[in-house]
């Protein structure tokens, strides 16, 4: 069982990568990759259903011998927390491959890079030690460099690549220093061991908390260090944006959950004001910036900033529901942002603009698309019935216990801010006047319809019946409390 859940995906992906490099026929490569990624998704669904939700701690683990033991052994494990993110990754990659089929030049190399990203993400989420997580965290830069830099469409992509690369490297170097400190205090870098009491003084824990926060806040983009996100999302191809928004931003949140909360437990009460302040600032500025954008993708990029920071508020509110809300928000944001980027990509493929001023009246030309896109944008706005609403409401509940005035500000800022640009988006793309200069375009293909449809379907289901995910999370949160975290 362990090997099937943990090693078979990696082996499948490696073999697909090798075969893609050797074989030059696109159809065979596509079917092979698609079948492999779907089977990985099925494996993870099976794993998720077979998880015991009452247990806390790693349930499936495997240790890889013959690897160098620097800062600890190489052990891969599946936890209650990582299972959600594994499901998300395994769900998104078949859609990406489906979207790319017959649309992109040099699809072989593109698929190789995508599969490499999936491999590294699986290693990231199944890592049982901080060192493996850190290594995979850094290696992901290598394929993303090529995805953004080579298949992006404009000259500004070089600038975007530079920003992406160096912001994340800055974060990872800060995390390296924190890694050393943690290794010296604990003696290991296993995530399970971080829950033990450590011998750091309050001041040291404060400094460590700030450094770890900086390191991970670059990934969840938070205000001063979010500058890479708009550029990278705009200049990347659609699938690159989907991966970035869908999963790579979640690495920051995942890291915070695994590293910051356990290690700097005593100090969060005093430091969370700073963290929540930055998150609030990001929400307000992100939503205002999104409302003034002309580029569709930049709007959605800023909206992802807003949503992730709302989750961060829930994370640092010292309550069980906050952590649950954060994780749930991350998952739902993964689905929604992916859907929005897919939609924008479909528009771009047909009309070759992302400029809001040139678009309008798509409901007449592309009815199927407009329905699904409308639902996605409503979901982005956190309308009841969608998963974002569940997450945001739980964040508000956690803030009630914390600070009520903050809740008021946050509710206004997030809900008003998001509605602003979402409404602008809907009106301008779907329901405005149709420009005569737009070329005649076809409605969605079958596979595009499937992509958007299944995402909308999942969002609505999660919004109406969130207990699929929330029940396991409640147990996880309870054990978080039981381990003297809150």
């Amino acid at each position, binding site marked *: 069982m362990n090997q099937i859940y943990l090693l078979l995906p990696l082996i499948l992906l490696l073999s697909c990568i090798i075969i893609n490099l050797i074989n030059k026929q696109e159809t065979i490569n596509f079917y092979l990759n698609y079948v492999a990624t779907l089977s990985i998704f099925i494996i993870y669904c099976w794993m998720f259903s077979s998880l015991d939700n009452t247990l806390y701690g790693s349930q499936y683990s495997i240790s890889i011998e013959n690897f*160098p033991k*620097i800062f600890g052994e190489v052990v891969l494990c599946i936890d209650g927390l990582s299972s959600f993110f594994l499901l998300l990754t395994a769900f998104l990659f078949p859609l990406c491959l489906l979207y790319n089929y017959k649309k992109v030049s040099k699809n072989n190399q593109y698929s190789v890079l995508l599969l490499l990203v999936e491999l590294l993400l699986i290693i990231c989420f199944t890592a049982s030690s901080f060192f493996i997580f850190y290594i995979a965290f*850094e290696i992901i830069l290598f394929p993303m460099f090529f995805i953004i830099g080579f298949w992006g469409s404009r*000259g500004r992509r070089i600038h975007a690549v530079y920003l992406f690369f160096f912001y994340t*490297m800055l974060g990872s170097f800060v995390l390296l220093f924190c890694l*050393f400190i943690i290794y010296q205090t604990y003696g290991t870098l296993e995530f399970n061991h971080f829950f033990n009491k450590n011998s750091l003084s309050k001041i040291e824990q404060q400094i460590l908390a700030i450094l770890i926060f900086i390191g991970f806040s670059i990934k969840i983009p938070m205000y001063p260090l979010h500058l890479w996100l708009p550029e990278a999302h705009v200049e990347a191809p659609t699938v690159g944006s989907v991966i970035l928004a869908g999963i790579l931003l979640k690495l920051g949140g995942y890291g915070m959950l695994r590293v910051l909360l356990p290690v700097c437990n005593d100090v969060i009460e005093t430091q969370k004001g700073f963290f929540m302040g930055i998150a609030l600032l990001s929400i307000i500025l992100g939503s205002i910036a999104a409302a003034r954008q002309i580029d569709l993708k930049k709007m959605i990029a800023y909206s992802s900033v807003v949503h992730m920071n709302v989750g961060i508020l829930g994370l640092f509110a010292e309550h069980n529901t906050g952590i649950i809300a954060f994780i749930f928000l991350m998952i739902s944001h993964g689905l929604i942002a992916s859907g929005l980027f897919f939609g924008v990509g479909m528009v771009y493929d047909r009309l070759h603009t992302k400029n809001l001023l040139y678009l309008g009246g798509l409901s007449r030309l592309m009815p199927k698309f407009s329905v699904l896109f409308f639902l996605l944008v409503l979901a982005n706005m956190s309308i009841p019935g969608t998963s974002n609403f569940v997450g945001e409401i739980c964040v508000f509940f956690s803030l009630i216990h914390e600070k009520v005035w903050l809740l008021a500000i946050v509710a206004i800022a997030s809900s008003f801010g998001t509605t602003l640009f979402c409404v602008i988006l809907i009106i301008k793309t779907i329901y405005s006047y149709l420009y005569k200069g737009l070329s005649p375009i076809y409605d969605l293909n079958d596979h595009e319809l499937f992509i958007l449809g299944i995402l909308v379907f999942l969002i609505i289901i999660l919004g109406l019946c969130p207990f699929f995910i929330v029940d396991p999370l409640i147990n996880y949160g309870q054990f978080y409390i039981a381990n003297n975290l809150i």
Partner: protein
Amino acid sequence: MSLNILYTICDYENNIGLLFFSIIPLFFFIYLVFFLTSQRTGLFNKSYVAFNTIDFTNTKIRSLIVMLLTVGYVLTQNFRYFPEIKLFMNGVGIQFNGKIFVFQLCAILLFCVLCYLTLQYRINLKKEYILLFYFFIFAALNILMQVNLIGIFLLIEMFSLASYIIVAGIGNKIAIEGGLKYALMGMFSSALLIIALIFFLLNYGTLNLLEISLLERYNYLDTNTSNYFITFCSIFLLVSFFFKLAIAPFHQWVVDVYKSASNVSFLWLVSTTKVIVFFVLLLIFESLLHKTSEHLKYIFIFAGITSVFVGTFGGLIQINFKGLFAYSSIVTVGFLVINFVYYFENPEKAAALSFIYLIIYLLNILSFFFFLSKVQQKSLIFGDLRYINNIMKSDKLVGFGLIITFFSFLGLPPLVGFLPKILIFYNLYNEGYLITCLIFIFLSLIGAFYYFKIIKRISLFQETEITFDSTYNLLNVEKISVIERLISIFLIVLNITLIIKYQIFYEFIENLLK
């Protein structure tokens, strides 16, 4: 075998003449005979015509490779039959007990690779330059067996003089200017070295490293005055070696010299000087850094930090890849030197980390020059970066290899250049030097910028005026042969997978240096 007899009979104390009566000149004589016999040919015209052609020099270089490999084989046999050769009567203070042969094998491997790479660059070498290459080999192989500081000085002078001529002789007129600059700087540093030796002689009474180590460890005299005087003396010594290595306050000559040198002389300079001077530093530090280490720590920290600082910020505006590698060599030397800060507490670790970092840097830079030779154009004597644009369009394997080497220079994880850096950072942190650790981490991030620039030029197809095309390729008209393809694949795979065997490698070297 005659080896054992020589070592049991001869007395190494203060006997410089033994240099010339030790076994290593056997190599010299063998090669000299080979070299001289080559001039005697039956057909006089042919020998005159073939005096300065490429084929002649290529055969000589190939014969040099073969000779080196046989020497390496002989040394391995020695090591097998006599594993516990003690080169010195006294084991106290000297850590290289017969395990010098392994370092000699590394040096031999390095020189084989360098000779192979000189073959790849099809330059018109004159006959006598091979002898100059030989001086490097002689110096590198003998320098580890020196007990006397004057022996060290002589060997350093030997290879420096050879390198002056190599830099000035291969290339065009700018190379001559570079050679002259290098010669002046090198001679100045040798003069400083002599002054240092004089001060050492004043203080200790001998120049024998064994005796110096004994005096350092078992000195019952008043230590205060000798401490400061020894730091004063060792500053001269260190400054002269820092000049040769191009460590930060003394780095200015490196940029001009490396830019004006041709590719081949650049190769030999970069790799051999660092290796030889690094070995010398290891030898000297094990006997010297006992009581003086407290004061010399500040020098190492200062040198390391300024080197990394200068190297990163100097390399950002370079448009010439040789200038770029000059600054990156300054950075690597900073990384090498900073490890000696904790040499007194943990000597094996310091030396092992520095050595591994050096090896991996050499691996990367040599693989870069291998790939560059496939892309060689006549104008690349100046090393302009614009001629490396868009290699991926025409030659995927070479482009991918270049990308991998540059990512390992950066320090991206699964590649080989990552682990030495992270271990150096960790050991700095562990020994308590937090701020230096932070500075190094952030400056290595900034230094990543100029490697990234090259990667961008190679792979992301920007619209530029100059792109690499086969029409510009005046020198390498042939396609890549199978062997070269295999070598390139081997280098790529090595870069990616060496990290798995890194632990074994590191422990081996740590055991050697005990």
